[in-house]
């Protein structure tokens, strides 16, 4: 009886192995082709799922996507004179804030060493004898703060910037999906509006057409451009402009030429979040 049960288990497992080979492996074999494609950026292979080891400072210099275009001839197209003359700003002569005229003893005993504060503006006219800066700044404290903010901002960097890279997926290999490949290249150029009052409401999409060499085949098109650019919400208008600018500034894109049909047309959704 026990032997029979084992036989059934064994049969079931063998059957399932057999069946899975039929159904799944043919597709996987296709994918293996693309996995051998080397992509000349920090992510090296393509796969169905993203799977990236986390990395600290990446020694490899990041290829700069230089946009070298032939200098256009200067079109002497006289722009219409600045149409908006907002207001003829008749700025009143500075009448406010007269210092009270008071005779004052000129000599101000200054206990502190005269450490001259660098004057912010050379042409400033001092209405009264000025006190000197009594003490220099606490540079140590300041620089430690700056360091701290640097560290913090470094932590805020997007994942694929080269210096640091977060792991993704199982974290055991160096593969990425096609969309991750494109995302990693666009994100660098996108100024995200995370500090706007309601970032979740500022989602916009851009339709991109790419040439086989990864350059832009046409000007990127903002989806729903009338609603976005005509919005009364200035943050939304700006989010639309920034999305288009990001796609332009990061071109050309390093994408695997063999799969051109897959990335010839791309819809990029820019979805800022509050963080």
């Amino acid at each position, binding site marked *: 009886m026990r032997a029979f*049960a084992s036989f059934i288990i064994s049969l*079931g497992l063998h*059957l*399932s192995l057999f*069946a899975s080979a039929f*159904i*799944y492996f043919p*597709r996987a074999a296709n994918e293996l082709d693309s996995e051998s494609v080397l992509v000349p950026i920090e992510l090296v292979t393509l796969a*169905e799922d993203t799977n990236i080891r986390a990395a600290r400072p990446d020694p490899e210099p990041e290829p700069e996507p230089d*946009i070298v275009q032939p*200098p256009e001839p200067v*079109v*002497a197209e*006289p*722009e219409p004179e600045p149409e908006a003359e*907002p207001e003829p700003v*008749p*700025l009143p*002569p*500075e*009448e406010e804030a*007269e*210092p*009270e005229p*008071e005779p*004052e003893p000129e000599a101000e*005993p200054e*206990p502190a060493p005269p450490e001259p*504060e660098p004057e*912010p*503006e050379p042409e*400033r006219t001092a209405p*009264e004898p*000025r*006190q000197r800066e*009594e003490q220099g*700044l606490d540079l140590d*404290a*300041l620089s430690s703060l700056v360091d701290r903010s640097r560290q*913090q901002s470094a932590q*805020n960097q997007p994942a694929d910037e080269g210096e640091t890279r977060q792991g993704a997926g199982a974290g055991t290999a160096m593969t990425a999906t096609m*969309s991750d490949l494109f*995302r990693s290249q*666009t994100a*660098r150029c996108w*100024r995200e509006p995370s*500090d706007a009052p309601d970032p979740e409401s500022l989602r916009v999409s851009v339709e991109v057409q790419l040439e086989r060499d990864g350059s832009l085949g046409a000007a990127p098109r903002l989806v729903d451009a009338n609603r976005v650019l005509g919005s009364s919400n*200035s*943050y939304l208008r*700006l989010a639309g*402009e920034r999305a288009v*600018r*990001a796609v*332009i500034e990061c071109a050309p894109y390093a994408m695997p030429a063999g799969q051109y049909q897959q*990335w010839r*047309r*791309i*819809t*990029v959704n820019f979805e*800022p979040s509050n963080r």
Partner: protein
Amino acid sequence: MRFLARLAALLGMITALAAAASAQSGDGPLVVTVTEGNVDPFPIAITDFIGEDAESVETGADIARVVTNNLESSGLFAPVDQDAFIEDISNIDLRPRFADWRLVNASALLVGRVSVDEQGRLLVAFRLWDTAAEQQLLGMQFTSVPENWRRLAHKVSDAIYERLTGESGFFDTRIVYVSEGEGPEGEPTRRLVIMDQDGANPSFLTDRSYMALLPNYSPTNQQITYVSFRDLQATSYLYDLQTGRQEALFDGSNAAITGGGQSLSARFHPNGRELVMSVERRGRHDLYGFDLRTRALRQLTNNPSDDTEPTYSPDGEQIAFASNRSGQPQLYLMNADGSEQRRISFGEGRYTSPVWSPRGDLIAFIKQQGSMFSLGVMRADGSGEERILYDGYFVDTPAWSPNGRILLFTRGDYSANGTRYSIWSVDLGGFNLRRLPTQGAASDAAWSPLLD
């Protein structure tokens, strides 16, 4: 039989997975979702404004310098070094060679022109270009008397800031602060100073015969309130910066305040015509509203503890304040008529100095925990986590920029001969920490609204 049933289920799952995989390879566009970008400063090329004669050329360079300094100090822009420029702008009405500007990594380009018309008025025109989309983003001109070139530069800065960030600028503004010094006999002096936001044109507002403290700017016009302190008596004053006239808010006519009463920290209603303040009577502080036209005083809170430091929401509907009614000072909210008082801060330590953001969504505060002072912001409804922007040996008197993007605060640093005070700015993310260019020791900043 059970095994067979499980086997069937397993086979079904494998089939479903394969079907899902094949469904993914459609013929539509690749869909990419970007959720994280960068928050780096925006690279902008600012060319010297061109001019016909030597004087205009000089003014044009000065304007470019002020604009560059303004935008850079905001922390949101990275002006490109002028030495890197390739194209020499000689006519601002021609399209620039965008490729030249993209090469120096400028995402935007500012070109401008300075001229003087027949009446001797200064005319400043400028264009802001998007170098990626190759489009003009903004084209404007301003005129004024030549002495006002600096304010024109601030107006240009504000226009660019607004176009590229979506929020209003804060460059054509002034800041009032308390200058700390010593008199002839070594006695401490506290005098109000007003200066441009970038530190230019400073001048004293008060003399050294009395101490002037805690200025607050009207959100609508060139008026401040401040507290004078003389003969151990604190009195709230209203100071009209345009006329130079100042008046004590409560003279003998207001019996509620006189007779040992002291008033502190009067802040303006968003309409600029009313004040809210804490008044000390019989040893305890309560909050009062005060109408500047009718001179009517209206009591808003009434309890045995101290209610202090009131601040209006930008819509005028609510007031935030500090109170020690539950022991240590904490922050509270109430309707503008004093109803529905409720606590909004629940962290450890002492919460004081609430100041409502002009944007309305946040309240800045000072928190003291042990020997550590912090400047923080919390959501105005008290929800969510508080965010600490700065902490140090001593931190006090937060003040918002008129667009709610930057906070000024007084910072005290320990030194052998006493605490040294200075004013610093920090942005909402806790970045871009900068010292305000004041002369000498300074504290208690107040930021004006945008000038007209």
